């Protein structure tokens, strides 16, 4: 089963939930798909080894063969090529690697060369927790290819926990599209509720069953709870607004390791997720 941990935006405790859940369960895979800010390992402290470079194919134009017809530049939807009177300029960072320019070049003057945009890393295997993460190079705009590359490493025969990217755009959809269950982490405040609704909308596109983790519970009001009750969305877990937890977080220490009882709570939460996901898949 693949469980995505998502939230309308960053800073709501997504990574905390993903890491603590993974540590409570032990025999699972954890994927850090927040490739712009992969923070899980700050709490795990694994030695990571590079597994795979994520690349994007970008055009390389052979000036000898190029007839300067400009077809490639006028085809490119992403302005990654510009035709000058005596030269075709390319802007690799804008290129999506669609291959269109080489397809339309009548002179066969375009070769495609891989350009690195990110990296997939994995923990060395002496832990019962298998951890993978993707890292997007700073300054790169396209997170989705890195996420897709990361997802190819999911071992379907085991449970996988996926720390999703924040927001509601393509990168999250790439994660939700493959998930069997989505945990939405939120706070019961006006901001939290608003962002939660956005995330819920994204999850509903794929009809993934959803459950809620209320973070910093005790702060704010009951708006998220009331909404969940009305919509029949289960509240899986409440993490109190506790300075101790905030402090462990700031130190990069997963609190299931330090505070008794929490491991059990996360395990119970996972059982609830399983029950609900099975119901959704038609298994009783």
């Amino acid at each position, binding site marked *: 089963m693949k469980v995505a941990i998502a939230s*309308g*935006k*960053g*800073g*709501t405790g997504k*990574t905390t939930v993903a890491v603590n859940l993974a540590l409570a369960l032990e025999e699972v895979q954890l994927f850090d798909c927040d490739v*712009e*800010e992969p*923070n899980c390992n*700050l*709490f795990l402290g694994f030695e990571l080894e590079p597994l795979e470079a994520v690349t994007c194919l970008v055009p390389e134009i052979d000036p000898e063969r190029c007839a300067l017809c400009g077809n490639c530049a006028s*085809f490119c*939807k*992403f302005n990654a090529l510009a035709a000058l009177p005596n030269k075709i300029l390319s802007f690799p960072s804008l290129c*999506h*690697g*669609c*291959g*269109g320019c080489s*397809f*339309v070049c009548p002179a066969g003057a375009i070769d495609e060369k891989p350009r690195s945009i990110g990296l997939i890393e994995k923990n060395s295997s002496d832990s019962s927790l298998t951890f993978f993460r993707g890292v*997007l190079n*700073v*300054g*790169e*705009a396209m*997170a*989705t290819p890195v996420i897709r590359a990361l997802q190819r490493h999911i071992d379907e025969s085991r449970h996988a926990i996926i720390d999703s990217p*924040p*927001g*509601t*755009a*393509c*990168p999250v*959809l790439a994660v939700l*599209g493959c998930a069997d269950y989505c945990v939405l982490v939120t706070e019961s*405040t*006006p*901001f939290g509720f*608003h*962002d939660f609704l*956005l995330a819920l*909308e*994204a999850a509903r*596109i794929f009809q993934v069953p959803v459950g809620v983790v209320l973070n910093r519970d005790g*702060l*704010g*009001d009951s708006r998220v709870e009331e909404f969940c009750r009305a919509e029949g969305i289960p509240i899986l877990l409440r993490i109190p607004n506790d*300075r101790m937890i*905030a*402090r462990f*977080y*700031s*130190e*990069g220490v997963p609190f299931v390791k330090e505070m008794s009882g929490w491991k059990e709570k996360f395990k119970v939460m996972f059982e609830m997720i399983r029950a609900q996901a099975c119901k959704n898949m038609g298994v009783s």
Partner: protein
Amino acid sequence: MRQLAIISGKGGCGKTTLTAAFSSLSGNAVLADCDVDAPDLPLILKPRVLDTEDCLGLELASVDSELCTGCGICREVCRFGAVLENFTINPYSCEGCAVCTVACPEKAVCLTPRVSGQAVSSITRFGPMAHANLGTGEEASGKLVTLVRKKASELADQYSCKLVLIDGPPGTGCPVMAAITGTDLVLVLSEPTVSGLHDLKRAIKLTAHFRIPAVACINRYDINEKKSLEIEAFCREAGIPLLARLPYTDITTEAMMNEETVIEYAAHSRKAEAVEFVNIIRKLWADIKMRLSGPCDEEMCSKTLPIRES
């Protein structure tokens, strides 16, 4: 016109709280909520909408089933896996690159524009504001950020505002780049957590890349003073002026629950904590205003918080 962008390596650092506070202090600024994925400023500032403008995102391919012979060429050439087995298009995968349109022998595929979101001009109790509505699953966020900033400059012209306050998106991706290019100063908000320093470094790398002067501020510094000192040390080494340290407080949430900025909240709250908190923000704002008011000179830029001894 001067532009200040407030960013942080990630969300939840208190960016919006701070931007809202600045807006209630500045008096003559246009706000640009560039956190287009999850715009929260409108929740506090309750804007009255003046007009909206569609932002055209990536185009989307569509297959004319009358013409399609099912030869499968489009599926072969599409590198984004957007052509499904029945030769229809998955809108969430299609990047609108148009390769399928030129590859299809039957000319059965065409591209259609799609609206990815809207940029909104509005008016709030603190002055004009530009923000966005983004369609779920749309990713033209960089483009939409640019459009929101364009709206903000138009509003600045229209209302003779001298300053644009940009509430930046989280992360270091394309939307953030769109939010900070061409600004005069970037304020990076950081938190004393293991990820906080890490995120700050990434954000600073980005501002350095665009050669924009950056200043920093630590939020909830007292959650972990040791980590705060690490952040201070980093700022000192990197030559980033650290302008303020904000304490951990529930005031920010209380203000948010009241749909007020912290400045408004402190004005009627009897809590000493609120007054103290707001005083730090006032000082921070005065400092930023000074930095924005003239060309940055060496002496002024090196004026940072005295570093405490540990």
